[in-house]
């Protein structure tokens, strides 16, 4: 009699990876009609950009969605990448977990080699149709066209058809076309949004999109510079797990433990290898492949006990402060945001042996919606994350930051803040710790969260500074309207009624204002930035002080100046010794900056010295570390003139109960 175990053994059989994912498609993110369409495109576009970057080609990507039936779409993604050699095409598109990056420790978009073949598989499950792949490498004269399906039982590609052909006008590149059931939508989680966000963090790419209605949108590239190529590094020993160590020791080509430690890991020197071996009570010459479990455990403990330098970080490719700004500007210009906080790129740090770095940018105001939660743009290795916002460490970090300090609304000082703002967070790492295979949210690691929080705070402070400046200016602007427009008219009319000459206004004006008001502007035309700084002395005394600005080094134009600066330094610090400005007089300083791009300079940074800071609006007091060489500093001693504080009630603000009905 066959035992129950035998019976069961008959039923137990190997499930192939593809079969497993076919049944658990949500693990890869194909869990709704809307999402599947986005996921497929995301996988194809990620691969295209990765391939272009590896081959040092500026990416040109075209995405087209056509509606075949109500729910069936034909999706085409074409790139100008290096192409795929004929032999490799079936495996890349028709076999899961086949990839070049799975074993490499470096920053890249795709990691496991599941995505694009899963897309092909999902397409074939929902429509029964194969994917068509066209690819041509630069070396070959012909391109290859193949119809590919995934054999889910074996996790192997089935090539239904293959033809060589001449791809007109195409030097190299890959184009995949597949059919898929899905639903096409607009909004925050859509193909358009995904491509738009991709364009923001990949400003070196040109991405065109043709939607099912045939409407074409193109995100032009904002820079011609490729991001620096990322380097591959060896695994860093910190955070190493026993299983990984076992695999590595079995597979290493190095015959001695000493060499294995030195060459298969990063940051382990000869001296350090010796120290580890001593601590683990193992010989430097032992064969790593023959270590038993007990010995491997000792080795791991020893690795954990020594001090090892942080992993090299040149394997990471930050987008960079300038390009984040450029990318945001390029895509957001239509909403005319009033402020782009200078983005922050943090120095690399390490999470469980993997280097990572965090970048943050904030955009504020303009046409952004005022009364809704801020928009959060999350990126992992330059790939937009559209789903699972609530589960992501980025959201956690934003929620636990007190945004009220930085000028956004936030009930109780935690949670997603409200206001006209977009917060961009990019996490780059050789291994981004996602919460699931679908790569939708970054896991909540304390090292990562605290780095994000630090970067958010730095950006938040710039935002607050901007908002403070704006508020003071608008308050003063209101008074400016009184003294420049309303008061002169009152004087004129009253003089006319009483039949006397128009009275002088200076006394009233200085009593209303009692400040030196600095109003400034920057405009850009014909490759020049034109800067205007107007200084209104609305104090009762004449004023003489120094003005300082910071401009991009080397851009100052000496032509056509009325007031020459007393100093223009190599680091871009410019100072003027202003002539005496009489009470109620105005002085204008105009100059140009040459050779800059529009976005290189958009807000003036103005400082004043030699005057009581409370008397100035529109310029900050000169910071102590400015180091004003050769400029005479005379701190003014006079106390600010106290405003005439009459305790009278404002008549026009106390009409609460005027209505009887």
């Amino acid at each position, binding site marked *: 009699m066959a035992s129950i175990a035998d019976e069961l053994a008959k039923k137990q059989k190997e499930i192939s990876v593809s079969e497993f994912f076919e049944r658990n498609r949500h693990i890869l993110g194909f869990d709704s009609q809307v999402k599947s369409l986005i996921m497929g495109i995301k996988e194809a576009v990620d691969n295209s950009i990765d391939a272009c970057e590896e081959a040092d080609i500026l990416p040109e990507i075209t995405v087209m969605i056509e509606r075949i039936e109500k729910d069936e779409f034909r999706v085409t993604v074409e790139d100008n990448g290096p192409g795929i050699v004929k032999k490799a095409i079936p495996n890349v598109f028709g076999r899961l977990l086949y990839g070049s990056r799975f074993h490499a420790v470096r920053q890249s978009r795709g990691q496991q080699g599941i995505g694009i073949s899963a897309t092909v598989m999902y397409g074939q499950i929902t429509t029964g149709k194969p994917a068509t792949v066209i690819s041509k490498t630069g070396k070959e004269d012909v391109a290859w066209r193949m119809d590919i399906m995934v054999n889910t039982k074996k996790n192997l590609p089935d090539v239904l058809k293959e033809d060589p052909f001449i791809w007109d006008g195409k030097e190299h590149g890959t184009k995949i076309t597949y059919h898929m059931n899905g639903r096409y939508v607009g909004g925050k989680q859509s193909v358009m949004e995904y491509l738009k966000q991709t364009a923001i963090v990949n400003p070196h790419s040109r991405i065109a999109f043709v939607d099912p209605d045939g409407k074409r949108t193109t995100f032009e590239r904002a820079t011609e510079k490729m991001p620096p190529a990322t380097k591959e590094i060896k695994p860093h020993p910190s955070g190493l797990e026993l299983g990984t160590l076992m695999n590595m020791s079995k597979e290493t080509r190095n015959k001695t433990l000493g060499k294995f430690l030195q060459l298969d890991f990063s940051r382990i020197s000869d001296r350090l290898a010796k120290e580890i071996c001593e601590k683990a009570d193992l010989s430097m010459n032992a064969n790593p492949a023959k270590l038993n479990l007990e010995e491997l455990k000792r080795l791991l403990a020893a690795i954990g006990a020594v001090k090892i330098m942080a992993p090299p970080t040149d394997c990471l490719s930050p987008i960079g402060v300038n390009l984040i700004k450029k990318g945001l500007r390029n895509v957001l210009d239509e909403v005319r945001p009033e402020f782009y906080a200078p983005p922050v790129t943090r120095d690399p740090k390490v999470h469980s042996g993997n280097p990572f770095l965090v970048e943050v940018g904030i955009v504020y105001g303009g046409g952004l919606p005022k009364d809704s939660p801020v928009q959060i743009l999350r990126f992992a290795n330059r790939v937009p994350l559209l789903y699972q916002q609530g589960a992501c460490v980025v959201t956690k970090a934003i929620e636990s930051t007190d945004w009220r300090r930085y000028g956004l609304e936030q009930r109780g000082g935690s949670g997603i803040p409200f206001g006209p703002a977009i917060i961009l967070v990019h996490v780059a790492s050789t291994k981004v710790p996602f919460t699931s295979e679908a790569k939708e949210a970054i896991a909540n690691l304390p090292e990562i969260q605290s780095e994000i929080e630090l970067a958010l705070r730095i950006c938040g402070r710039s935002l607050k500074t901007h908002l403070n400046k704006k508020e003071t200016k608008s308050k003063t602007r209101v008074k400016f309207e009184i003294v420049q427009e309303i008061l002169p008219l009152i004087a004129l009319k009253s003089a006319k*009624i009483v039949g006397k000459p128009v009275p002088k206004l200076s006394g009233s004006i200085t009593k209303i204002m009692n400040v030196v008001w600095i109003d400034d502007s920057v405009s850009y035309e014909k490759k020049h930035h034109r800067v205007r700084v107007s200084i209104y002395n609305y104090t009762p005394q004449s004023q003489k002080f120094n003005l300082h600005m910071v401009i991009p080094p080397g851009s100052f134009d000496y032509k056509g100046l009325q007031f020459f600066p007393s100093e223009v330094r190599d680091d871009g610090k410019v100072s003027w010794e202003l002539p005496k400005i009489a009470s109620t007089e105005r002085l204008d300083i105009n100059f140009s900056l040459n050779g800059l791009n529009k976005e290189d300079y958009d807000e003036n940074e103005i400082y004043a010295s030699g005057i009581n800071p409370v008397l100035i609006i529109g310029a900050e007091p000169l910071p102590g570390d400015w180091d004003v060489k050769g400029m005479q500093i005379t701190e003014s001693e006079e106390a600010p003139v106290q405003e005439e504080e009459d305790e009278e*009630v404002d008549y026009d603000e106390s009409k609460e109960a*005027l209505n*009887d*009905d």
Partner: protein
Amino acid sequence: MTDDENKAVRSLTNIAQSIYDQIDSGRIPKMTLPLRTKGNIRFDPKHGVFKYGKATGARSAKKVNGALMLLRTMYVLEFIEDMIANSKSSTLREMYYISEGWEKAKFSSQDESNLLAEDLEIVTACMREDLKLRAEENGASIIGDITISEMDRKGRLKKINCRDDVGDSGYGIPNNVEREKVQLLGTNAKFVIAVETGGMFDRLVENGFDEKFDAVLVHLKGQPARSTRRMIKRLNEELKLPVVVFTDGDPWSFRIFASVAYGAIKTAHISEYLATPTAEFVGITASDITNYKLPTDRLTDVDVRALHAELKDPRFADEYWRGEIETMLKLNKKAEQQALAKYGLDFVTDKYLPEKLNNMGVLR
């Protein structure tokens, strides 16, 4: 130019002179005015009405609002002086539209221009008629046995009996009810009843209340216009007719009564011309709601807030009103005058009013 006109021009020029002098001497120009708030109305024992107290506020060029109002004041001064010089006058609404051409000084709403006109009345101690500004609000109507003579547009005196010589809508109270325009010749009526709503006024007319009880019916049309209040005051003072006020039973009606009897907050500077201190409140009172089991509505949030505001209003600071307001808050209900129709169309004239007026001693 008449004496009144001379006085007006002098006062207006004084305002401009003061602003001019302040600028000329290097100060921030401002105007000081009595605060027109409910906290700043005081009982004036001499006239028996409520007038502005001593608290003042400043309209100063230090703030944009104040500066703009000062500028508008200058424009309005010039405008009024022109009208006086050319023997013209304008309605308040016309002045609001004329300000369209004043650029920066343009009024942003008619409320604003109306308020400024009242401000000028206060500062110059001239009535707005003297400033050549007319309200477009027309007074309401009167039905009852009083005889008046009114100067018509052609300068002829017309003798009118407000019961026999008028149609169903009664005698229309003109904008100007001063002696040069309207004279009260005589009456056989015993009292004046001022009615808030048109529906109730018509009911009393249809039921012949005026003839049956020798009453003069005055329609208030909600919060009464200045001319209506002035007319009631003259009927009371010159024809010695007692005045009673009949309104809905809600917080807003209390305020209507207060402006007839005690003076309105907005026009407290001329309360002695407009208010009738001996006027009495008939109802609907809060206790009527329970006594007569009237159909009601719940108080809204706004109603409740209004009642609480009235508890802080000096005009309602007596035992009677405090009781009424608190009862209404406790009931959390209000009722309309026309709710009396629950007992039939004649109930108000056959039962409710005779009962109430008897108790008050108005009907013998």
